[in-house]
């Protein structure tokens, strides 16, 4: 995900996660699966993401592994 996409209030649809298997599995467990929609709530590292009504904090480093559509 490019830095420009990480602006507060932006909504994205996850296309894929390019990270190690264990991180992908853990993110899957937290609800990040291809096709899911999420919103950036806070654009200060670590970022706050709203996903299906829950709030999750993710580092910028991790969000850079996200491919969105």
């Amino acid at each position, binding site marked *: 995900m490019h830095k420009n996409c990480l602006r507060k209030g932006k909504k994205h649809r996850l296309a894929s996660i390019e990270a190690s*298997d264990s*991180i*992908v*599995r*853990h993110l899957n*467990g937290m609800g990040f699966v291809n*096709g899911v929609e999420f919103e950036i*709530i806070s654009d200060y590292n670590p970022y*706050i993401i709203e996903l299906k*009504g829950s709030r999750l904090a993710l580092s910028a480093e991790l969000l850079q592994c996200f491919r969105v559509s």
Partner: protein
Amino acid sequence: MKMIALAGNPNAGKTTVFNGLTGTRQHVGNYPGVTVEIKKGVIKKTDFALVDLPGIYSLTPYSEEERVARNMLWKENPDLIVNVVDSSNLERNLYLTLQLMEFGIPVVLNLNMQDLALAKGWKIDTKKLSQTMGLPVVETVGHKNKGFDELIKSVKVALGASQRVSQTAHFSDSVNRALDILEKKLSKENASGASRWLALKLLEGDPDIEQEIANAEIKQTARELVNDLEREHNKEIETLLAEQRYKYIEGVFLQCVSSKLSFKKPLSSKIDAIVLNKYAGIPIFLIMMYLVFQLTFTVGEPMMGWVESAFAWLGDLIASFWPEGSESLLKSLLVDGIIGGVGGVLVFLPNILLLFLAISILEDSGYMARAAFIMDRLMNKIGLHGKSFIPMLIGFGCSVPAIMATRTLDNRRDRLVTMLVVPLMSCGARLPIYTLIIPAFFPSKWHAPMLWLIYIIGILLAIISAKLMRVTIFKGETVPFMMELPPYHFPSLKGTLIHMWDRGKLYLQKAGTLILGLSILLWALSTFPMLSKERIEEYDAQRETIVQSELADSLQAIQLSALDNLQAEESVEYSAAGRLGKFIEPVIVPMGFDWRIGTSLVGAFAAKEVFVSTLGVVYSVGDADEESESLRSKLKKNYDPLIAFCIMLFSLISAPCMATIAVTKRESNSWKWAMFQLIGLTLLAYFITVAVYQIGRLAGL
């Protein structure tokens, strides 16, 4: 006895359900990692054992606590799983439910926090959910104690019909065909009934399961099947399986949940907008920390006085059973050894309880998870994870629970570094040392800044040590920060008090066992061997001479008191404790310490707070504690502010207590790291204290 496991995502309310089902009072927190250990109990009015597992997102572990939970399910094979689900977060929580169904052990689905789902405008059709997923479904509102009787009834029914069947119908035909092939091969070697689940884990590439399966042919088949599936679907296997699970869950959710659109911004969002604000976040966090210390020290001070008075009264009461001036050994053991030793430590209990009360409020409200979030940037700079901050904060109370809390960290390197630096966060047991020394050597306007300085030195050393370890022995990438921020809760009085008491109880237990035993041992070491009969007779003769002299009564009293102190000091010097102190004196002299401080430091290794009572014994002032004026005046007579500062510095940095070393060994699963912590911190303390003392002397301090 039937065994039931309680499993669920972090913050789903498992511990509340555990307390409701068993009637026990385990601590409930509102941040991931409250259940760092597996807790066991018995369900009310039954003989079913209930096991509370740490929160997990998946049955393929990512962190140590997830591994603990998964291994319990896998290795101990419970008869039933109660899956506690946060109803207001149903879709994400059902991901674990599906994995538990794949595991095969019968599952009862517990829709907890129904009130939050209703507040969100959701109505969950539990009957339909039960039919669709093929599971018994029971609603509860844990914090209001609602629905537990129905849950117990459902557990009883489910146990009667329990049969292990791994459910994988939500996967595509091609995945199920691959599972059939692997299951057939595995069932020839594995009689546990978990062959289909093991087959699924092999497809997922779970490293623990791959290690467990010895048969190379099976592993090769799994690899080939994975390649086929990835080619067919044009995506990685974990993504494929996760997508199929979520697709099924989405269907279930749409069928079973009807929602009214709510345009109201949740309260948690409003609070987060302030406390997690880019500019206000850190100042708010610092204010919170200041309030925690203010509560601990300011409110705790008068309470310390009450405890002190109570022990003084008890000591006088016990002493009154003997005639005045009696030299009875039993009296000395009870009054000076036991009441003096244990009392000197228990006087600190109010501060410990208040500190735990503050930490408990922060945890239960949900702020602690935000604190980890706020601190992540800073922690990252020193090569640690934001989550490392929580164990470090708990370390200000006690290093033992703090080291256990490192289980929430996802990576072993982060865990070990955090574990090793946690003792540098000045724990509550060191506070009696500071509160004894600071008022004795520094003017009152310097009391608070000196205490603050000691804490800051500990924090800075922890930061520097962590950074050094991360660039040397623990090289490697820091695990990226990912953490769920639970909704804010108003902490319940009951829950907060339970939490405070559970941790305070450990301190009391330590005082009643370890410190009691040590007090008796230290009393014996400082009493035996006793001065020779001839030497005692010489002192008695000198007393007789003073009494027979024509000096005024007041002068006689002064001389007699000075003689008593002289005899007491000679007795301690002659005793085993004194000899031990003398033995190590050459090593500690470069820090400005004498044999008396040396003897007390040996006692402090068992438990830091024992330093004060040992010093009291060594200086023969009876029931010494950190408020003891007689001990303070003796210290002031014998040492200067530089030595006093060095005592505090050495106590802060040197080896933590025995209990901390033991828990480091257990949590790191290695004596190597426990010994590294013990020797490393002691050497660090030694070199820093020698440097400070010698430079201070050169500077004319």
